[in-house]
């Protein structure tokens, strides 16, 4: 079969089983768009800004585990995509981004719409390629998808000069069956000796804690995790990125840890004698002050990426390997050993944890007469029976969502953890909804964040994506306001979001349903009504308490045991 470069690009996507491409056309990719037009297997979703394309591809990937694909033109198309690429990079999301480039003879001449895409994206991709010859397209795509999805996943950029996709130059096409790269060999199995050592430590532990992160979800290791944690009976806490890998409603789950984690999770981290870190990377929002981190613990760390191990915190038993395979091996070693954990000690440990739980650190004022953001998330949880896909933006609403929507399944909680990208929620929701037609997809957002990619409401209309947007409208960049209240004596420098649009009219003008809710008593009914509209996007402008803060909180420089639980409370 003889194909042009542009046709080969499309054919490669088919070979990789790509169903959706999120994109935006322009000069450098016109040949590719023409090839797209002439087939129907690969569906193109026209976004309204390239940032939206990358976030939508990202949301698709996070909610399915399959690589997301975006297609943008050269120059401004590529630079607009960078935020989405960096977002995916920080959270290790498999993605392939195709960027058009000026024709190869013009590269380096400051040609119209030329940027050094490979150079600009280099620090925020797992790898990138510049294709110089039409004969290299197939092999490059094969490598790109392999790199994006294997080992520690991540975004891969393929930069394609326009002449390489010339419709008049046809060459024979065949897609490589195998891919082998001598310089890239991700570990496929953990070291058995280390695994046994870890099991011995776990069996000897008196105050153990599992600390799990996004790596568990990325490697689909939730089943192994649940079995191991239940078998041992230890408490488990999760990072923001790991929520849902272990059921949030299970009694062994002690909540999220870190800056806005629960009292019981952070205290358990402080007191633990054996920390079992799985697919987590000891991020600074999680560890608090490193000098105070887990002062009494022997640390076991399972991760696919050797460079994550002992990067921020020195660990005692590193295990490099895919989480699912390592946990599978651990289960087997444990079963064969016929040994069980120290039950009396574990019993006492739970007694201590339940005491911490007794502080009910997430409680909030239920009788204020205005809608509390926490109450809004709890209501959403009830109305969706805890079974929605929830994407979020960045700010207080994101933390409230993480604290109050108890995720029982992996890939349900979709947010930008590492980069903290405002504007992520809506386009990510589009990717989720396309991947899961018929499922409830809620976008929890703030009035500042939503405006960063608001144009995607048009995309939602064009493709009938019935998202439910829950705007927790506090009139402030709440998270910024909170820091200014705490650390800048209430000097609210530019954190008040003035001149807000009428969100109801705005969504109506895009052809959607808008609702405004101002009273706590009206909220549940309104949400039920919204979710009953199965085929409509409903934008709920929920007016919440402008002064609410996120608690508990560990302020910068403090350890896990030095949380502030509520306004005015002493640090404890």
């Amino acid at each position, binding site marked *: 079969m003889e194909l042009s470069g542009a046709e080969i690009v499309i054919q490669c996507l088919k070979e990789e089983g790509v169903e959706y491409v999120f994109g935006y056309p322009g000069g450098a990719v016109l040949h590719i768009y023409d090839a797209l037009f002439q087939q129907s297997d690969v569906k193109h979703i026209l976004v309204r800004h390239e940032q939206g394309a990358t976030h939508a591809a990202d949301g698709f990937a996070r909610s399915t585990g399959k690589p997301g694909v975006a297609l943008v033109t050269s120059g401004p198309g590529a630079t607009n995509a960078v935020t989405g690429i960096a977002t995916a990079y920080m959270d290790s999301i498999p993605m392939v981004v195709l960027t058009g480039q000026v024709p190869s003879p013009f590269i380096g001449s400051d040609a119209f719409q030329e940027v050094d895409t490979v*150079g600009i994206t280099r620090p925020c991709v797992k*790898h990138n390629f*510049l294709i110089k010859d039409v004969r290299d397209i197939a092999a490059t795509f094969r490598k790109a998808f392999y*790199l994006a999805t294997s080992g520690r996943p991540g975004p891969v950029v393929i930069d394609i000069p326009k002449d390489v996709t010339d419709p008049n130059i046809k060459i024979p096409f065949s897609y490589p069956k195998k891919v082998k790269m*001598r*310089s890239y060999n991700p570990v496929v199995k953990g070291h058995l000796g280390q695994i046994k050592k870890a099991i011995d430590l776990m069996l000897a532990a008196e105050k153990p804690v599992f600390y799990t992160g996004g790596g568990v979800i990325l490697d689909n290791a939730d089943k192994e995790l649940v079995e191991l944690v239940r078998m041992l009976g230890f408490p488990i806490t999760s990072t923001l990125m790991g929520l849902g890998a272990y059921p949030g409603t299970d009694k062994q789950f002690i909540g999220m840890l870190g800056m806005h984690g629960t009292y019981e999770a952070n205290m358990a981290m402080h007191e633990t004698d054996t920390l079992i870190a799985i697919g987590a990377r000891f991020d600074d929002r999680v560890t608090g002050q490193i000098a105070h981190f887990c002062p009494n613990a022997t640390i076991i760390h399972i991760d696919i990426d*050797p*460079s994550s191990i*002992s*990067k921020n915190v020195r660990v005692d038993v590193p295990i490099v390997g895919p989480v699912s395979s390592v946990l599978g091996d651990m289960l087997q070693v444990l079963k064969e050993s016929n040994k069980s954990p120290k039950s009396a000690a574990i019993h006492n440990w739970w007694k201590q944890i339940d005491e911490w739980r007794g502080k009910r650190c997430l409680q909030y004022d239920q009788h204020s007469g205005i809608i509390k953001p926490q109450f809004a998330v709890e209501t959403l949880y009830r109305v969706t029976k805890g079974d929605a896909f929830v994407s979020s933006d960045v700010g207080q609403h994101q933390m409230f969502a993480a604290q109050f929507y108890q995720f029982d399944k992996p890939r349900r909680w979709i947010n930008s953890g590492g980069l903290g990208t405002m504007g992520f929620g809506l386009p990510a929701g589009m990717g989720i909804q396309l991947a899961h037609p018929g499922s409830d997809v809620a976008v929890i957002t703030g009035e500042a964040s939503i405006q960063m990619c608001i144009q995607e409401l048009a995309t939602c209309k064009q493709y009938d994506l019935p998202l439910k947007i829950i705007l927790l409208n506090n009139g402030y960049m709440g998270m910024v306001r909170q820091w200014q209240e705490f650390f800048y004596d209430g000097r609210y420098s530019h954190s008040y979001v003035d001149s807000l649009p009428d969100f109801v009219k705005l969504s109506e003008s895009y052809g959607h349903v808008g609702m405004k809710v101002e009273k706590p008593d009206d909220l549940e009914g309104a949400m039920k009504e919204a979710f009953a509209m199965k085929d409509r996007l409903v934008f709920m402008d929920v007016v919440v308490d402008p002064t609410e803060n996120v608690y508990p909180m560990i302020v910068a420089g403090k350890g896990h045991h030095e949380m502030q639980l509520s306004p005015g409370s002493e640090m404890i």
Partner: protein
Amino acid sequence: MRHIISILIENESGALSRVAGLFSARGYNIESLTVAPTEDPTLSRMTLVTRGDEAIIEQITKQLNKLVEVVKLLDLSDGPHIEREMMLIKLKAENGRRDEVARLVDIFRGKVVDVTDNTFVIEVTGKSAKLDAFIKAAHEDSVIEVVRSGPLGIARGAKGLKL
């Protein structure tokens, strides 16, 4: 601690900038970096000299290994190894000082590779410290120009950094 790291990397355009970019993005320092293709033209060999405590060096080697184009690397400082750097140095050598310079070249087993009425270009090879010593011995005010290659390194013994 000073470390000298040898890297085999795919000989592709952009590979060098990935290494250089990694060091600047993560705030590691590069004291010197040399690159050239190997006998296998698809591979380049880099020799990189850096400084850092044990934890930083561990991160540097892990991050380098994580670069998709890095095929193999070896921290030569982990074992006995040989280091050589080459220097071309241009010295003033007016009448009356020419013998002195010639003696110096002799002591350091250097070579005079260019001569004019009042200058010498001298080639010296050796450990970096030896080159430092030569410059010192040559007197600051007689040095016109110094070009150094940065060190190359190879492990002692039978083992080699090969595919």
